[in-house]
């Protein structure tokens, strides 16, 4: 397949990237802004900019734009192409061009079945991080593709879990697909590209503005068969993803959290509004395919040695630190060694502050 993008879509994408921060200053919902045609977008910009943008768009060298994508190692496909992911067409303003790092063929293959998005807070609790990771892993093991935004926190944990589960995962980036954003996730980006794909609406070299995150969220929502919110505060972008998903008819799931935790306000709110309760990969599978039709793969059938099981159970019950374990009857002389054994065996993970969490 020779990927291509038609002239109209290519110049549209260029225009969005060129307008950058102007779009942030527009009043109104981003969906409506993105529904404007090229002329409408330019008109919405202020006085002198307007004329300049028109000139630039007029004299735009489309071949150079395409060459830049090629040079960045990206494959492109536009919404006029029959192979364009049909799921995205459910959006009122689907991205004009998809820029794909890691292979267009792979992206189409990974998103063909029933991909699931796992999204959430950039500052999750250790518990949230662990849930995102294990959900990603179990879904991957069950043969589903995990889609997320590679943001800090829940997103990254979901990707990492899917990679642990040994399957490709799709990252939808706000800027350009070949460049990791946030930059701290360089290593994760590299790992994702080895077996999965990174995709973006905007072309290489685009500088990143606020609206691009919301625009990215709509792609995540549309590309997935279901989206799951793990942890999110009331103002989280993950809730925007959930809202878009609901508007275009994608099921929304949420992982319940403690009512006292601000990070649980988002998912609990969604649950109250009728979202699907997600307690694990099986809930997702049941919702997508009908109860009990497909069973979640068991990522880890093994058990720790018998003498370590009571300790693991105590950690899973919420005795998360050596001191708490001491109160539960596991003194430091034996307990510390047993904790290290569990950690080495991959049954628990040690987080900040020396807090242990069971790996589900």
């Amino acid at each position: 397949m020779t990927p291509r993008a038609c002239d109209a879509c290519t110049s549209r994408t260029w225009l969005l990237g060129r307008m950058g921060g102007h779009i942030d200053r527009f009043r109104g919902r981003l969906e409506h802004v993105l529904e404007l045609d090229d002329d409408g977008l330019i008109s919405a910009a202020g006085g002198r900019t307007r004329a300049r943008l028109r000139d630039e768009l007029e004299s735009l060298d489309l071949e150079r734009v395409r060459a830049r994508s090629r040079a960045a190692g990206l494959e492109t496909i536009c919404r006029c192409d029959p192979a364009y992911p049909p799921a995205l067409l459910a959006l009122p303003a689907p991205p004009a061009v998809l820029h794909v790092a890691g292979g267009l063929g792979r992206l189409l293959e990974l998103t063909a079945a029933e991909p699931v998005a796992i999204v959430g807070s950039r500052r999750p609790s250790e518990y949230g991080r662990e849930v995102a990771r294990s959900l990603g892993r179990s879904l991957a093991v069950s043969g589903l593709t995990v889609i997320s935004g590679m943001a800090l926190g829940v997103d990254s944990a979901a990707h990492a879990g899917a990679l642990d589960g040994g399957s490709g995962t799709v990252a939808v980036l706000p800027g350009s697909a070949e460049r990791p954003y946030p930059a701290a996730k360089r290593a994760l980006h590299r790992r994702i590209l080895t077996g999965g794909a990174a995709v973006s609406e905007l072309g290489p070299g685009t500088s990143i503005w606020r609206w691009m995150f919301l625009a990215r969220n709509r792609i995540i929502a549309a590309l997935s068969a279901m989206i799951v919110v793990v942890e999110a505060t009331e103002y989280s972008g993950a809730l925007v993803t959930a809202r878009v998903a609901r508007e275009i008819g994608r099921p929304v799931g949420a992982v319940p959290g403690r009512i006292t935790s601000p990070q649980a306000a988002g998912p609990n709110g969604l649950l109250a509004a009728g979202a699907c309760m997600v307690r694990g990969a099986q809930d997702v599978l049941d919702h997508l395919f009908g109860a009990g039709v497909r069973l979640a793969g068991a990522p880890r059938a093994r058990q720790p040695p018998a003498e370590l099981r009571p300790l693991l159970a105590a950690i899973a019950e919420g005795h998360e630190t050596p001191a708490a374990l001491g109160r539960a009857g596991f003194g430091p002389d034996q307990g510390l060694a047993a904790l290290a054994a569990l950690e080495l065996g991959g049954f628990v993970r040690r987080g900040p502050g020396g807090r242990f969490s069971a790996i589900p």
Partner: protein
Amino acid sequence: MLARIATFAIDGIDPRHVWVEVDIRSGLPAFTIVGLGDAAVRESRDRVRSAIMNSGYEFPQTRITANLAPAFLRKVGPGFDAALAIGVLAASGQVPAGALSAYAVFGELSLGGELRDSPGALAVAEGARRAGLERLIVPRERAREAALVDGLEIAGVSTLREAAGVLHGEPLPALPAHVHGAPARATAATTFEPDLADVRGQAAPLLALEIAAAGGHNLLLEGPPGTGKTMLARRIPSILPEMTRAEAIEVTRIHSVAGLHAAGLIQTRPFRAPHHTISAAGLVGGGALPRPGEATLAHHGVLFLDELAEFQRPSLDALRQPLEDGRVSIVRGQRALVFPTRFMLVAATNPCPCGFAGVGDRCRCGEPDLRRHQRRLSGPLLDRMDLLINVERPSEEELRASPETSSGRARARVATARERQRRRLEATSATCNGEMDARIVRRYVRLEEPAERVLAQAYVVGALSARGRHRVVRVAQTIADLERHDRITQADVLTALSLRQRGAAETALAA
């Protein structure tokens, strides 16, 4: 007429023999001091003149030249006053010049003729003994301290007149009370020392503290504010083995030179906790006239760096040589001064910038904050930390419960473990497990088969770096010594693993 008397200059923390030569010639009345003295030495002329006259002696109305030899050594401070005054008295025949050869004199004078308290008397006494002198005249406040040096008679005098009396052959004044054989720790005063019995809960940190003390391992305490990190650190000296007499004298000398200590022998290991705004020179020593820094004041004791992440990078970097070599050399002019710095490094830090990581949902730090915090902490200093302990708030029941242990009990266990190490490491440069380098570890550390397996597994799954593995083995050896295991068992390695300090590469922030 010429008179000559010995005294000592303090160079860093070491005594340097100085001859005070006083020559009296006929001529116009004048008093000059030569021999590279600083302002305090120059001003000493006026103190000496007034002190001599106010003590009822006669100040010669002739030409007086005093020389401080050797001439190349820079002389600092008022400690030469007494020697100059005695020199003038001897040169003018008011005290017998013949008696001077066996004496050293040290101290500052007041205008009224009293000898004032002058820091560094112990160093001076050591110099006097080394120079083969028999008697040392020091200010009375410093007599007990100087008397710690064997084979030297100490005359603690409070006035110039008493000093002259000693030279006239009067009996030496008795030393102030409590000099010899002050009991080590049993005195009433020591019961107020910090003790592990003050700690409630904290079972795991207490265990780690004991391990750190037993093996001389540097230690990082991590925990939210107010959980007791400083409290625990302050109690480490109480479980370290007692200082030998040689160590105690060394510590006393350093603290005396620094002017921090006045009487008798220091018997508790020093605990120094500099504030995090300290400069590199303050930490390791320095200044135009080098003075010992906190690292040297903590020699044979504990250097505690609270809020490690707040220290300036240059200060922490300056600690590398002292940690590595057990001493620091400071070069000034053409000379290098060496200060000893064999201390146990204990540092405390919050787990994250807000301090509440891992405490329910209280932490408001994002991943980048945590990363930045980790970066601030990491670096060469952290590489020297063998143990990491997470300190938590004790629960209400624990606060009301009886203490887990006491310093006495812990100290006994530590002493046993140290003895085992001493015997094993006799032939090496290391004195405790914390000082073992890779070569010594290979040669002297033996692991049981299952222990080897666990270690290999930890390495393979990436929980350890190569350097981290080395640290774990050292700590495991100390645990084995505490448990009296001849070879390191699997449980020893596992315990060491759970107390390991995770370098940036080993931190499970990745995801």
